[in-house]
C-alpha cells in the first residue's frame, strides 16, 4: 500500500513538469508578451525592450524556464508581473475561494440530485419522474456560463435580490451567502443533472431486482423498502459524487469569470489576458498538484470502501 502511494507520488513529478513545460511553451507561442501587456499602449518598441531586459525576459526561453524551475524547487513561485505580489499569496487566496465555491455547489447538487433521482425512480413513469428527468436533461445541456448570465439578469438586475458579481467585502455570513448564491447555483447545474440521472438509474436497477419484490411480498413498509434500495445503490452514487466534486474544482473558469468570483478560474483568465506568466505557471502547477493528489485520494478511498480492489 505505502509502496503504491510512494510510486504514485513519484509519478506525479513528471506529470507536473510536463504540465509546466506545456503552459510555458503555450504562453510564449501566443503573440504578445508579459512586458508588452503591462506597458502603456503608447510606449515604443525600444522602451519595451529596455524594460524586458530589466526583468530578464530577454534571455532565451530555455534559460527563463530553468530559472523559474530552480526557484520553484526552493518553494518560490516568483512574483506576479502585474501586481508584483508573491504568486503563492495570489494562488492561496484564489484556491480558498474556489474550494468554497466547489463545496457549496457540490453540496447543492448532491442534495438536490440525490433527492430528485430517488423521487424519479420511485415515481417511475409518472409526472414527478418526467419533471425530475426533464430538469436533469436541462441541467446537463444548458451551458453554465449562459445560465449564470440569465441568473444575473433575473436575480440581480430585474429583481435586485442578489449581487451580480464579486465576493463579499462586508464581514458576516449573510453578505457572504448573498454573494456566493448565484455562482453556486450556476455551477451546480451540470452535476445536478448528472447526479439525478445516475441516482435514478441506479435506484431503478435495484428496484427491479428480485429481493425488492421479496421484501414487498414479505409485507415490509414502503419506507423500509426505500432504505434498502438507497443502501444498495450507495456505492454507485458515491463514485459519481466523488467524480463530480473533482470536476467542480477544475471546471469553474467560465462561471468564476461571469461572476468575477475571485477564485483560481478567474485568476487564470486574468493571467492569460495579462500574459502574467509567473501567475499562470503558479496556478497551473498548484491546480495540477491538487488533481494528482485528489486522484490518488479517490483511488485509495475506493480500496477502503471496496476491498475487492487491490492497489499494488
Amino acid at each position, binding site marked *: 500500500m505505502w509502496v503504491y502511494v510512494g510510486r504514485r507520488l513519484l509519478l506525479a513529478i513528471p506529470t507536473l513538469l510536463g504540465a509546466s513545460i506545456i503552459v510555458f511553451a503555450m504562453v510564449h507561442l*501566443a*503573440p*504578445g*508578451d508579459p*512586458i*508588452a*501587456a*503591462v*506597458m*502603456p*499602449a*503608447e*510606449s*515604443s*518598441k*525600444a*522602451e*519595451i525592450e*529596455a*524594460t524586458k531586459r*530589466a*526583468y530578464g525576459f530577454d534571455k532565451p526561453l530555455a534559460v527563463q524556464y530553468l530559472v523559474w524551475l530552480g526557484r520553484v524547487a526552493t518553494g518560490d513561485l516568483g*512574483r506576479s508581473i*502585474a*501586481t*508584483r*505580489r508573491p504568486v503563492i*499569496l*495570489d494562488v492561496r*487566496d484564489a484556491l480558498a475561494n474556489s474550494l468554497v465555491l466547489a463545496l457549496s455547489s457540490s453540496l447543492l447538487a448532491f442534495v438536490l440530485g440525490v433527492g430528485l433521482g430517488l423521487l424519479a425512480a420511485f415515481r417511475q413513469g409518472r409526472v414527478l419522474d418526467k419533471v425530475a428527468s426533464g430538469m436533469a436533461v436541462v441541467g446537463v445541456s444548458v451551458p453554465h456560463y449562459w445560465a449564470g*448570465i440569465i441568473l*444575473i*439578469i433575473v*436575480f*440581480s*438586475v430585474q429583481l*435586485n*435580490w*442578489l*449581487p*451580480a*458579481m*464579486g*465576493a463579499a*467585502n*462586508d464581514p458576516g455570513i*449573510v*453578505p457572504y*451567502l*448573498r454573494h456566493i*448564491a448565484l455562482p453556486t447555483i450556476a455551477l451546480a447545474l451540470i452535476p445536478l443533472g448528472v447526479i439525478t440521472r445516475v441516482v435514478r438509474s441506479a435506484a431503478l436497477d435495484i428496484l427491479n431486482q428480485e429481493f425488492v419484490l421479496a421484501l414487498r411480498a414479505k409485507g415490509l413498509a414502503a419506507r423500509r423498502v426505500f432504505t434498502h434500495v438507497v443502501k444498495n445503490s450507495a456505492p454507485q452514487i458515491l463514485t459519481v459524487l466523488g467524480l463530480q466534486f473533482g470536476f467542480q474544482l477544475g471546471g469553474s473558469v467560465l462561471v468564476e*469569470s*461571469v461572476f*468575477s468570483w*475571485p477564485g483560481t478560474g478567474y*485568476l487564470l483568465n*486574468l493571467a492569460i*489576458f*495579462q*500574459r502574467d506568466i509567473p501567475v499562470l505557471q503558479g496556478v497551473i502547477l498548484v491546480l495540477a498538484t491538487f488533481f494528482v493528489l485528489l486522484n490518488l485520494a479517490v483511488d485509495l478511498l475506493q480500496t477502503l470502501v471496496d476491498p475487492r480492489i487491490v492497489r499494488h
Partner: protein
Amino acid sequence: MRRMIIVLLAVALSVSLPGLASAQGTLRIGMTASDIPYTGGQTDNGFEGFRFVGYQIYESLIAWDLTRGDRLAPLVPGLAESWEVRKDAPTKWVFKLRKGVTFHDGSPFNADAVIFSFESIKKKDSPHFDTYGSGQVGFRIASVIGVSKVDDHTVEFETNKPTSFVPYQLCYMLIVSPTQWQKFKDWRKFAEQPSGTGPFRVTKFVPRERLELEANKTYWDVKRRPKIDKLVLLPMPEPTTRLAALRSGQVDWIEVPPPDAIPQLKSAGFTITLNSYPHNWTHTLRLDKEPWNNKLVRKAANYAIDRVGICKNLLNDTCIPATGVVYPGHPWFGKPKETYSYNPAKAKELLRQAGFDASKHPAKAVHLISTSGSGQMLPLAMNELIQKNLKDVGIDVDLQPVEWNTLLTRWRAGFKTPENEGLNAWNISWNFLEPWSGFGRFFHSKSVVPVAVNTMPYINPDADKLIDEAERTFDINKQNEVLARLHEIIVDDAPWIFVVHDQNPRALSPKVKGFVQPQSWFVDLTSVTVR
C-alpha cells in the same frame, strides 16, 4: 420534506434581503481595467490608472484643471505654485513648490520629495529606483534628464534640449512620499500602504478585487476637499459585468457602458455623461506601398466613410465624426482645406483619378484590427461597417482581427517585419493630450520605428519643421497656432483614415450628483456627492 422546503425558503429569503444601505457618501466605481491600477506612485493601466488611482492618491507639480466641461482641460499649478524657463539657459526650468502641503503619512512635501520621485523613475542606480513605475511613465517625461534642489521649496529641472513641452511631461510625474518609502524600502509594500498628497488616501487594498480610499480631510486645496467620505474602485473588464453591477446597485458609476444598453439605462433613470476629449479612432495607413501610398486614394477612403451612421446607428451617439487628428473646436484644429464628409461619389471620382479601376486595377488592402481593447470601442462592428463603406466605392479591404495585445506588439514592430509585410494598415485608437502624443511620435521623420511609433512612415519636411517650431515656442497660444498649421497639413495629407472621436460615455446612478465631465481623459471626483 415539506418542513425542509419551508426552512430552505426562509433561509433563501433572509439571504436575499438587500443588505443595509451603504454609508453616506460612498462612491463605488466599476472600472474597465482588469486589475487595480498600480498604487505605488507611477501608475499603470494607461490613463484609466491615472484617472482613478494616480491623480486621486497623488499629485504632480503641474495638474489638469478638470472642473469644467466647456473647454479643453488646461494645465494649472499643482504641487508647484509657478514655474518658468530660465532666460539665460533655456534647458533649465525653475519650479517654486507649494508650501504647507503634507503627505498622507504626515511628512512634509518639499524639494527632497520631488527629487526622490524623479530618481525613482529616472535614476537606475538609486536604491529607490522603481523598475516597473519607470517603465510606465519614464517615456512620458523623456526630455527631462535631471533635477536639483535650489532650496527646500525650489527645484530646477534640466532637459536634454530646449523644449516647451516640459509642462506636458511633468504633469505625469506623480510625487510620492520618501518618508513612507523609507519605512518599507520596497515598492510593492509601499503600493499596499501608499502615501501621496492627493484628495484621497488608501484605506484598504485587496489585490485584484478592490481598492478603498477615504477623503483626505486635510487636503491643501480647501475648494477641492472631497464631498464624499469614501471611494471604492472595482476592476470590471467585462462590459456586461459592469452593466449588471450598476443595475443591481453594486456600484454607482461605470465606465464605458455597452452602447446597446444606453437607451435602456436612460429610461431606468441612470445618467449618461458624454464629452469630447483627446481621443481618436483611426486606421493608420502604410504609406510606402500601394494603395495607400497615393494621396488621392487616402482622400477617397476618407470621403467613403459614413461617420455619422457609425456614431448614430452603431454607437448610440457615444462618439462624434472625426475629420482630423483632433476635433473641431480643439485649439489645434485650425482650418483644414478638406472636410471629410460622407461622399461616395467624390470618393469614386478620386479613386478613378488615382488610376484605380474595379476590373483592371482594383484597390486592395489588408488591415490589422483588434477584437477588443482599451479605447477601441466596438472594433469588430465598426470595422465591418467601414469595410462595407470602402467596398461601396471600390476599395477592397481584408480585415484581420487579432487580440489587442497582439495588435500592439505587431504595431510597435512596424510594417517591415516578415509577419507584417502583407499589411497595409492598423486600426488603433490614440490620445492627443499633448503635442508629442498627438503629433511628434507619429508624424516626425525622427520618430520612425523603432525610435518611436511613426510606423507609416510619414515623412514630410514641412511637418518636421512645424513640430520642431512648436517645441521651441514657449508661449502656449503661439504654440497652439503652430500646431494648428501642422494639423491642416496632416488633414490634407490624410495619412490616416479618420473615423470617430469617442465621447467617453459613463453611466451614473441617479444618486450621483455634481460630476462635471471634463474634456479630458481624467476626472475630478472631489465635486461628486452620492445621495
